[in-house]
C-alpha cells in the first residue's frame, strides 16, 4: 500500500494538472465563440459566391475549359487543414484519417499542402509528399491568406504540375460535433452544383463566358478555402474545449479516489498507533 506522503504528492500533482486543463478549457471556450462568429460572418459571401458559380457553370456547360474538364495531370493536391497545437482530442487524427483512408487518394499521386503543423507532421511521418506549408494562416485566418493559397494552387494547376485540387478540413456542426470533410475544388464538378438556380435567368456577361469562368473560379475557390479555414478554427477550439472538459472531469474523479484512499491509509495508521499505545500501556501495568 502507498504511503501517506506518496498519496499526498500524487493528489497535488493531479490537482495542478486539473487546474491547467480547466484553464485551457476556458480559453478555448472564449476562442470558440470568436471563431464561431467569424465563421458565421463568412457565410453570406460564400453563399452568394456559390450561387454565382453555379449559374455560370450552368450557362457554360458546353465550354471546354481546364477548370471544368481537368488538365490531364495525375497528381492530386490535397490541402489539409489541421491545427498548429495539439491537446484537442481526436481532432487532428480524424482529419488525417480522412486523407489516408480515402481510396481515391493514392499515396503515390498525392501532394499535401498542409495548413496546420500537426497534420503536416502526421502525414509526413506516413510518407506523403509535401508541398508548400501554410501553417501560419490557421491561427487567425484572414481572406488574404486564402487568396494566397488559391493563387499558388491555380498557378500549379495552370502549369500542369497538379491535375486535381482537394480540400480536407473539419466542418463545424456544433460545439460538440465536428465532422471531417473532403471536397474537390478543381476541376469544378458541375454535378456538385445542381443548386436551385433558375436556368432561365438571363444573365449577360461583360466579357466572354470563358473569361468570366477564368476570373470567377479562382475567387470561388478562395472563398471556399477561407470558409474552410474559419470553420476549421471553430472546430479546433470546439474539439479542444471538449477534450479539456473530459480531462478536467477525469482529474476530478482521480482526486476523489485518491482522497478516499488517503483517508483510509490515515485511519489505518491512527488505529495502528492506538493499538501500539494500548499494548505498551498494558505491558507496563
Amino acid at each position, binding site marked *: 500500500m502507498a504511503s501517506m506522503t506518496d498519496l499526498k504528492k500524487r493528489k497535488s500533482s493531479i490537482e495542478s494538472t486539473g487546474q491547467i486543463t480547466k484553464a485551457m478549457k476556458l480559453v478555448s471556450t472564449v476562442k470558440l465563440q470568436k471563431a464561431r462568429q467569424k465563421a458565421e460572418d463568412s457565410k*453570406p*459571401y460564400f453563399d452568394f459566391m456559390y450561387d*454565382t458559380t453555379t449559374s455560370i457553370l450552368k450557362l457554360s456547360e458546353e465550354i471546354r475549359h481546364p477548370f471544368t474538364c481537368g488538365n490531364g495531370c495525375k497528381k492530386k493536391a490535397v490541402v489539409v487543414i489541421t491545427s498548429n497545437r495539439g491537446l484537442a482530442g481526436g481532432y487532428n487524427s480524424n482529419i488525417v484519417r480522412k486523407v489516408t483512408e480515402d481510396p481515391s487518394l493514392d499515396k503515390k499521386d498525392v501532394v499535401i499542402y498542409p495548413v496546420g503543423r500537426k497534420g503536416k507532421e502526421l502525414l509526413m511521418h506516413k510518407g506523403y509528399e509535401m508541398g508548400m506549408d501554410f501553417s501560419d494562416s490557421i491561427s487567425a485566418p484572414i481572406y488574404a491568406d486564402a487568396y494566397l493559397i488559391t493563387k499558388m494552387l491555380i498557378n500549379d494547376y495552370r502549369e500542369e504540375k497538379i491535375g486535381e485540387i482537394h480540400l480536407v478540413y473539419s466542418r463545424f456542426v456544433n460545439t460538440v460535433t465536428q465532422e471531417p470533410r473532403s471536397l474537390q475544388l478543381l476541376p469544378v464538378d458541375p454535378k456538385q452544383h445542381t443548386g436551385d438556380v433558375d436556368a432561365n435567368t438571363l444573365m*449577360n456577361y*461583360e466579357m466572354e463566358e470563358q473569361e468570366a469562368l477564368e476570373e470567377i473560379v479562382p475567387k470561388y475557390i478562395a472563398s471556399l478555402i477561407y470558409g474552410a479555414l474559419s470553420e476549421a478554427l471553430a472546430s479546433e477550439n470546439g474539439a479542444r474545449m471538449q477534450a479539456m472538459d473530459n480531462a478536467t472531469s477525469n482529474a476530478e474523479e482521480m482526486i476523489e479516489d485518491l482522497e478516499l484512499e488517503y483517508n483510509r491509509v490515515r485511519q489505518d495508521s491512527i488505529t495502528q498507533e492506538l493499538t501500539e499505545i494500548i499494548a505498551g500501556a498494558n505491558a507496563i501495568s
Partner: protein
Amino acid sequence: MADTMHLSIIAPDRIFYEGDVTMVEFRSTDGYRGVYPGHVAETCILQPGKLVIHEKEGTKMAALHSGFLEISPSEVRVLAEIVEWPEEIDVERANKAKEHAQRQLARYHSDMNLMRAELALQRALVRIDIAGKK
C-alpha cells in the same frame, strides 16, 4: 419603375453595405460605369477603383479593389474581395505603396511584374484619392 434598387456589398468577413440606392458607380474591366435601377441583368468583373453609392440622402464613397458584381433590374450585388471605407484607409501606407509601385514600374520590364506593379499602383492611387475626400 421604382426609383431605387437594393444594393448589397458583401466582403469575405462582413456585410459591407446594404441599402436602397438611386445609382451606383464603379469601375469594371470596361472602365467607369454607372448603373441606375432597371438595368438589364449583367455580371461584371471589377477593377481597382472608386465606388460611389448614390443614396436618396446623399452619396457615399469607398475604395473597391477586386471582386465582381451582379446586376439585375431591382438589385445590385457586389462580391468584394477587398473593399474599404475612407476612414479605414491607411494613407501613409498607400503613399508608400504608390512610391514602391512606381519604382517597380521604372525598374522592371517583364510583363508579369509590370502587371502586378500597375495593379498595386492603381490600388494605391484609389486609396489616396478616396481617403483625401472624406
